């Protein structure tokens, strides 16, 4: 393992923020913080909830920018080629719509409320992602 303790600690703290945010949206808005679902709902037709979801999504980059303004380090190393990104994006889009959630909706909120669907979904997408990376090593 090549992770230092400080990085690990920051990840747990980041997770706590994510948990607080998910709890806030649940309690104040009666909504599950599922990012793929909210993104897909921005594709027309819009309805009465669209603005609320759009504001949550707008908060994501603004929150990250605030972190950078405070002096936080935000390294981004993207190794995938544009073609790989196209295939990956398409699969993530179609997959999250079929299974009705991604890492936030199933992985965090769903597991937190012990949803059997989300526990199965999270297990499957982590397993298939691990196998994809492993296969990529062989090719």
């Amino acid at each position: 393992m090549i992770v230092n303790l400080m990085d690990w600690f920051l990840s747990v703290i980041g997770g706590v923020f994510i948990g607080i945010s998910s709890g806030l949206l649940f309690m104040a808005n009666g909504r599950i913080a599922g990012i793929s679902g909210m993104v897909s709902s921005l594709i027309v037709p819009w309805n009465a909830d669209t603005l609320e979801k759009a504001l949550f999504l707008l908060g994501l980059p603004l929150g990250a920018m605030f972190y950078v303004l405070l002096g936080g380090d935000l390294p981004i190393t993207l190794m995938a080629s544009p073609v790989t990104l196209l295939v990956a994006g398409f699969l993530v889009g179609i997959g999250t719509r079929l299974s009705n959630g991604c890492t936030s909706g199933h992985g965090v909120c769903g597991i937190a409320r012990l949803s059997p669907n989300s526990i199965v979904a999270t297990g499957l997408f982590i397993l298939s992602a691990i196998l994809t990376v492993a296969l990529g090593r062989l090719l």
Partner: protein
Amino acid sequence: MRPNKLMSALGAGLVFGFGLAISGMVNPSTVLGFLDVFGGAWNPRLAGVMGGAVPVAALIFYYARSIKPAKDLPSPPITCIDRKLVVGSILFGIGWGLAGVCPGPTLIAIFFDWHFLPFLAALLVGMMAGTQLRNQI
């Protein structure tokens, strides 16, 4: 739409984005470091994020259910483990594993690195296709 709901949605988004940034999950190579269990340099940070997020969310969900009427909160989870859930999760995992990118981090990274654009564009197309497919099968 009540304005306070708009403010809380924006506020929750800010906290979520701040958390994602601190957590390191905006960086695809950190995510791939977790998924690459056979690479000899496993990076457990994603597990740390889940370990921080899930218990905190669970506690607040539990608290919310104890103080607010059920109609003001999301309905309890339904159990329907069908073909859509299984196939969709596997497809999502393959896409996630190909690049180490998922929807939340993309919405942040796109403002720092335009190379995420093909992913975002294809994500939207895939979502439209997925919505169509979902209604058919």
